[in-house]
């Protein structure tokens, strides 16, 4: 079993019962393989479905699914920070915006070819995330929440102010990436595949990151900072890295956003976006592998459906759901500590079993 899939179990509401049962120490070896195979199959089926979808759906649906993936990428980043490193960002949308605007500026003012903008936008967001992370992660998690909220609120007037670069309140309109002729794809399909590639990339990056030593250190900081410190892990350093990476991924998502929409304006990136993203990942499932994807669907479709009832309905739903989710796992993320510890043991014995 891989690390990330395992955390999935621990976060899902149903996982609570399972973790309790697991305490009796059922040997996971054989079952682990079965689950793994089943998961690979499901993953393959999902990818196949994803590749087939744009050929079966009308362009508007293709666009919607593209946006789901754009949000999912942003949520992969947010999940890394909140779900895996246990830190809170209320300004994830700001780093999303940084990526989106970097891309727009590079394409609009500098005429750079669009593929180049993807790594560059991610890099800009990474650097900014790192810079803000230095003061914000020195102390308790609360301060990161404060700083990121302040950033999210500050960003809109800032974007409006530097009109010559950002286009001010009017924003910037650009050409969306054209599909290469050999593909024979329509533009919406091409954008869809770009977003799909970005999504797969983001999932893979985080997957391997979490499997690395760094990922384990991050989990240990989340689960018990003091214990992590005793083991020689410097919490601030990992919190800062987690924040920088999560910003980087948000920046990459922002780049995909700009490609998909072909337009950026300050009012698309208000603090509401950040809060919506947080709602998405909390409802989708903190620390779970598929949480970002579910969150992306949620963020994309719930507002568009519920807005017919009332303009405020999405907010009411988001707010209530967030609170409800936190109740359903009453131990919150601390419960993860125990479950994750249990899981560490399980994997370790798992490995030994396999060796023997």
């Amino acid at each position, binding site marked *: 079993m891989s690390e990330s899939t395992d955390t999935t179990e621990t976060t899902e509401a149903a996982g609570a019962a399972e973790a309790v049962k697991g305490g009796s120490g059922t040997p996971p070896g054989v079952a682990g393989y079965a689950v793994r195979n089943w998961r690979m199959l499901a993953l393959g089926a999902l990818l196949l479905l994803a590749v087939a979808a744009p050929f079966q759906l009308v362009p508007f649906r293709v666009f919607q699914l593209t946006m789901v993936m754009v949000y999912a990428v942003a949520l992969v980043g947010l999940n890394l920070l*909140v779900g895996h490193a*246990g*830190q*809170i960002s*209320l300004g994830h949308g700001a780093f999303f915006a940084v990526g989106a605007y970097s891309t727009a500026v590079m394409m609009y003012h500098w005429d750079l070819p669009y593929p180049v903008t993807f790594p560059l936008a991610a890099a800009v967001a990474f650097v900014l995330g790192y810079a*803000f992370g*230095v*003061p*914000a992660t*020195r*102390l*308790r*998690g*609360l*301060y990161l*929440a*404060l*700083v990121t*909220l*302040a*950033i999210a*609120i*500050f960003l809109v*007037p*800032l974007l*409006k*102010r530097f009109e010559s670069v950002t286009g001010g309140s009017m924003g910037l309109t650009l050409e969306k990436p054209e599909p290469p002729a050999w593909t024979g794809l329509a533009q919406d399909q091409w954008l869809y595949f770009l977003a799909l590639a970005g999504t797969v990339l983001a999932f893979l990056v985080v997957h391997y990151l979490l499997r690395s030593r760094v990922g384990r250190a991050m989990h240990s900081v989340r689960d*018990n*900072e*003091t214990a992590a410190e005793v083991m020689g892990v410097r*919490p601030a350093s990992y919190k800062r890295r987690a924040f920088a990476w999560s910003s980087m991924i948000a920046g990459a998502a922002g780049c995909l956003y700009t490609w998909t929409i072909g337009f950026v304006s300050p009012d698309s990136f208000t*603090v509401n976006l950040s*809060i919506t993203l*947080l*709602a998405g990942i*909390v409802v989708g499932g903190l620390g779970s592998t598929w949480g970002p994807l579910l969150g992306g669907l949620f963020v994309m479709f719930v507002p568009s459906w519920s807005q017919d009832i*009332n*303009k*405020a*309905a*999405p*907010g*009411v739903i*988001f*707010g*209530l*759901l*967030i*609170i409800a989710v*936190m*109740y359903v796992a*009453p*131990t*919150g*993320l*601390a419960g993860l500590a125990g479950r994750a510890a249990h899981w560490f043991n399980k994997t370790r014995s798992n490995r030994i079993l396999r060796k023997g």
Partner: protein
Amino acid sequence: MADFVQQFVGGLGAGAIYASLALALVLIYQFTGIVNFAQGELAMFATYIAWTFIDAGLPFWLALVLTLAISFVGGMLIERVIIRPVEGAPELTLVIVTVGLFIFVNAAAGWIWSFLIKDFPNPFPGGALQAGGVSLAYSTLGVLAVVGGVMGLLYLMFRYTKIGLGMRAVATNPESARLVGIRVGWTLAFGWGLAALVGAVSGVLVAPLLFLEPNMMGGVLIYAFAAATLGGFDSPLGAVVGGLIVGVAETLAGSYVDFIGSDLKIGVPLAIILGVLLLRPQGLFGRAVVERA
């Protein structure tokens, strides 16, 4: 010089508003270790309640008293119903729950009163007090007087009443407070009620300056955070002093630093928060911040 003094006093007026929201944050933080991200939204909601009363023809000050009473009860209810189930949960959970509350209250206000901006009456007379070439707007003086009065009453309550003593005991050592027979749960609820009341004061005072709409308090909340960070999250006095400093700094930066102007003023609290975190993380009046185990 006269202009400077005028700006300075204007800054104090704005700062007094930030101070009252910051004080609301600090009150809750002290008792429960929770930073209530929904504090500004609760204040906004209270302001709508006040607006509804005024719109129905009630005199301003009566509407205010009714609003404060409703806020107090509402704050207590929120603690009992929404916060109680996650009491003692990790910080991440608490922050997320208050953010959920933030979103919910914001949207609920939009649902009930719509997102259109509303005019909120200024309770203070127009015009200004002229003194030595300096003109001080009555509304600024009025804000200072109201906030000063509220702070004074709070101080007296904490210092000289039994419930105040009990609250301080709960803030210092909840377990021990329970052992002397204090109903800690109700004391916490009382603290939330009080915080909601103090926050409502800031909402009602800021509404005439900003126009009333559901997102009115977002910016003010950031100023209040800066104030509480500057003063120290565990110090009510710090919140007040921090609020005044933030108000003055923001006003002076807005009028004397061309680059900042009125539209980038919201960067001032961000700079203050970052600066405090780098230089003096516990704030001016706070006890040294210890990483929680």
